[in-house]
């Protein structure tokens, strides 16, 4: 999606303000709440991370830029729950109104098995596969990012579209977000880390001794005319 979230290279945001070393992750109870909710829903695969990201990208542009980081999380979680028909926006509106009106919270049961499973997932030895599905390119290959700009979810930033780089690493194969976010399949696709010179991306005024490396799925790279069209 060609949204405002695709921020690489955008001018106008001013200086970066460093964060103190002892900064705490959460500044308010509501931030803790949405953090816990989002991790629980994605950890238990009620909602996919690819869907959370696409939902966030679908915020109104001005709202995305004006919202607190965790507010973006709330907007994307609500969108995912509404579209999978688990909780509607109206139901949250009504429940919030009742709480605002002074309704006491209902006593609620703990779910030790569900919670325990989630917690274990944060600490367990990972069991994911590192299979490398073979892609078209070897390390060292010159590759060109596609220029297509899809309306759905994608993870190729606009600033490298159409640019030529070099494969520097083969990565573990993984589901292509462009398909997985839209329930079109989670089968693993080949991926690489690709290096681009800053000068090639931004022009002659850019730092000439700097590079950007991105994780790029094989699907984001053009087929060269010399290749077989089989």
């Amino acid at each position, binding site marked *: 999606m060609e949204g405002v979230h695709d921020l690489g290279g955008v001018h106008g*945001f001013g200086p970066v303000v460093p964060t103190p070393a002892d900064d705490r992750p959460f500044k308010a109870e509501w931030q803790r709440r949405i953090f816990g909710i989002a991790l629980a829903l994605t950890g238990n695969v009620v909602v996919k991370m690819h869907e959370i990201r696409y939902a966030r990208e679908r915020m109104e542009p001005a709202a995305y830029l004006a919202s607190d980081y965790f507010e973006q999380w709330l907007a994307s979680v609500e969108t995912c729950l509404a579209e999978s028909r688990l909780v509607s926006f109206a139901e949250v509106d009504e429940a919030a109104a009742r709480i605002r009106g002074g309704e006491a919270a209902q006593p609620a049961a703990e779910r030790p098995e569900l919670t325990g499973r989630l917690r274990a997932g944060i600490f367990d030895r*990972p069991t994911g596969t590192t299979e490398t599905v073979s892609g078209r390119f070897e390390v060292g290959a010159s590759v060109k990012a596609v220029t297509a700009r899809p309306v759905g979810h994608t993870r190729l930033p606009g600033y490298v579209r159409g640019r030529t780089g070099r494969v520097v690493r083969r990565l573990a194969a993984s589901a292509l977000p462009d398909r997985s976010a839209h329930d079109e399949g989670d089968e693993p696709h080949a991926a690489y880390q690709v290096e681009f010179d800053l000068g090639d991306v931004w022009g002659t005024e850019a730092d000439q001794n700097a590079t950007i490396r991105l994780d790029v799925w094989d699907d984001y790279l053009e087929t060269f005319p010399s290749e077989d069209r089989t």
Partner: protein
Amino acid sequence: MRRQHSGEASPTAGRYPVDPVELDLRTRALEALLIERGLLGADTVATVVSVYEDDIGPLLGARVVARAWTDAAFKQRLLTDAPSACWELGIGGQQSQHLVAVENTEWVHNVIVCTLCSCYPWPVLGVPPTFYKSPAYRSRIVREPRKVLHDDFGLVLAHDVEVRVHDMSGETRYFVLPRRPPGTDHLDEEQLRELVTRDSMIGVAVPVAGDTRGG
């Protein structure tokens, strides 16, 4: 989730941003509804939050770095298979499968970012700091990294040092293995851990001898 067509309104049109009172009400409402529907327990949110407030943070990454500085064989294992090396130090979790450590050298300085959202190497660094998530960082670090490091973080890099920015656009979660600072030969692993800052593992700072994390 279906694709949104270009002329279609956002599903949250008109709803955001809102003030903190509303955010508090909405999140409480959402949590209550999810508990009611069996998707959360009353203990779930508190448990997950406490893990990231108390257990998982840059102290874990500092242990990995200090071990790599003092044990050459571990360092090699870290650079070739970070998930397994981190597991040796008890660092795990599903996301750790995607960890890759990138080494700073005399000629290359690494820095990480996620321009599209805020992906971050959580298993070794915890929750990302505010600057990392900011539009200013996400937009500028891939375009003028040396300038951002110099102007905003006070980190000066000579022009013959390549600045290498890793944009976490995919599944890999990169973190920086900074260089061991000079003047630290007399320090043991535990003392070296004190020098490894969150920002040095992001790449916007370098560890300095005599400069502990406490500040």
